[in-house]
């Protein structure tokens, strides 16, 4: 379990994240939703130690993250950010091999190679494993980065808007893979999402942020309600039940 305790982040005098406490349960997909500037990405960055919190602490399986060495941390929690600009040309396989860095320090043994193979197979990238990343489409690139995170083999996987700039087909593909990671491999996934319908269909729990505070925290059924969404987004959003999915019809509200 990841326990976030009273995290605060200031940019200048503005509180971007204000006294946030959240528990993230194991073996579930937890989505962070909320309007732009709500502090979702900042919160995720602090949990994953990419950003130092001004106050507060994060416990991972009851261990304070400040007490974990960077290398130990990277065997337990992985984070994938939105933009992954790189200066070098890498093939998919080379990128995925980097996922083994916390274990191998760049010298891959047989077990590492096996993990890399499995991750590439899992993301269905076997045929193009020797293609360069800059030759790939956005969806393929995103899958390659997720394969790297799978190779990293952490219990917790945090993703910051992984569906950005992806079309419907690739978005669904990525979300299905994340669902499989939780259901088949027992991973815990935390994801920042913009489209509430993806959050509604694929997540177990939803945490809603607004102006740097947690305004709602509960199961998907509890959050995907017109009243709750009104509080989060200031919009009247009708909800339709379709094939066991709860769909928010926000386009003309």
């Amino acid at each position, binding site marked *: 379990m990841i326990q976030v305790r009273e995290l605060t982040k200031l940019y200048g005098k503005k509180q971007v994240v204000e006294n946030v406490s959240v528990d993230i349960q194991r073996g579930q997909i937890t989505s962070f939703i909320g309007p732009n500037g709500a502090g979702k990405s900042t919160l995720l960055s602090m949990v994953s130690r990419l950003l130092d919190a001004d106050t507060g602490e994060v416990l991972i399986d009851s261990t304070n993250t400040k007490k974990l060495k*960077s290398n130990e941390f990277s065997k337990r929690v992985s984070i994938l950010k939105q933009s992954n600009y790189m200066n070098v040309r890498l093939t998919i396989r080379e990128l995925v091999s980097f996922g083994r860095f916390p274990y191998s320090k*760049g010298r891959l043994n047989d077990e590492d190679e096996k993990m890399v193979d499995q991750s590439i197979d899992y993301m269905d990238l076997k045929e193009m494993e020797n293609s360069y990343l800059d030759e790939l489409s956005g969806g393929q690139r995103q899958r390659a980065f997720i394969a790297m995170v799978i190779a990293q083999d952490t219990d917790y996987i945090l993703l910051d808007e992984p569906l950005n700039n992806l079309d419907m087909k690739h978005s669904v593909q990525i979300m299905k893979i994340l669902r499989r990671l939780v259901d088949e491999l027992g991973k815990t996934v935390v994801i920042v999402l913009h489209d509430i319908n993806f959050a509604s269909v694929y997540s177990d729990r939803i945490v809603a942020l607004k102006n740097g505070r947690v305004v709602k925290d509960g199961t998907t059924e509890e959050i995907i309600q017109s009243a709750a969404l009104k509080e989060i987004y200031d919009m009247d959003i009708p909800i339709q039940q379709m094939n066991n999915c709860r769909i928010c019809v926000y386009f003309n509200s």
Partner: protein
Amino acid sequence: MRDLHKMLILVGLALAACGVYLFQDLNGSFDYALPRRGVKVFAMVLTGVAIAYATVVFQTITHNRILTPSIMGLDSLYMLLQTLLIFFLGSDHITIVNKQVNFLLSIAVMVIFALLFYRLLFKKNDRPVYFLLLVGIICGTFFGSITTFLQVLIDPNEFSIIQDRMFASFNNVNSDLVWTSLVIITLLIAFAWKQNSSLDVLTLGRDTAINLGVNYDALVKQMLVLSAVLIAIATALVGPITFFGLIVANLSYQFFTSYKHSVLLTGSIVISVVALVGGQWVVERIFTFNTTLSVIINFIGGIYFIYLLLKESRSK
């Protein structure tokens, strides 16, 4: 062609350049000419290693392939120091006459400056790289202006001594300094070589590097100080020559397909040995000392820099 073959060819070229430089027209002068040429070749190899290593590492930590560590203003600081010493203490003062003292003093001042620079810029981790670039340029220009101001005021005889330090030269390298440099550079690189795989991860960007367990702040700090010390040594040894690093680092990226720092660093080192020893041979044999190596380096480097800028702007 595989990277290994390319490397072997380059090493062959480097050895050939050194061989030709050392033994051409020697006429059996093993006692006089050979040791003198030997010191020069030695100094060129050391400078090449230091500049190449410092530049590749600096470009990795700043995620930018058209920067050189001279952006930190170390070259200008070196010139300012030399000018200040001659201006206030005179050209016959021990800090100028004794090359060993001058060498160590220069290194100390440049390293202290680099540490201050680091504290100023990297302490808060939300400062972007461009901030470093701008502050560096401002410092460099500031040092350069003071230097020029003092040089205008100074006695013309004293100025000729400063002028001598303004351009990198291998013609009067002190052999004691070469040994001191060798020891420092060997120790530094022996220590830094272990970080190569972490540097590989750093090319993926800050966030991915931290995600993969690289201790980002500590690594960047170490590598920044390392490249500052290496630049300081090279500059104190032969004079300002940092621009040279831009050429060899980028040639190495173009030449080798690998992203690994063990390959890129070795490659850029060997390329810089070929360029320095070969270039010095051209200066001595073809131009018969009518020009200096740093003039040729700046000329070719400038053209290459413009080419890189055009290429970068086209790829975006």
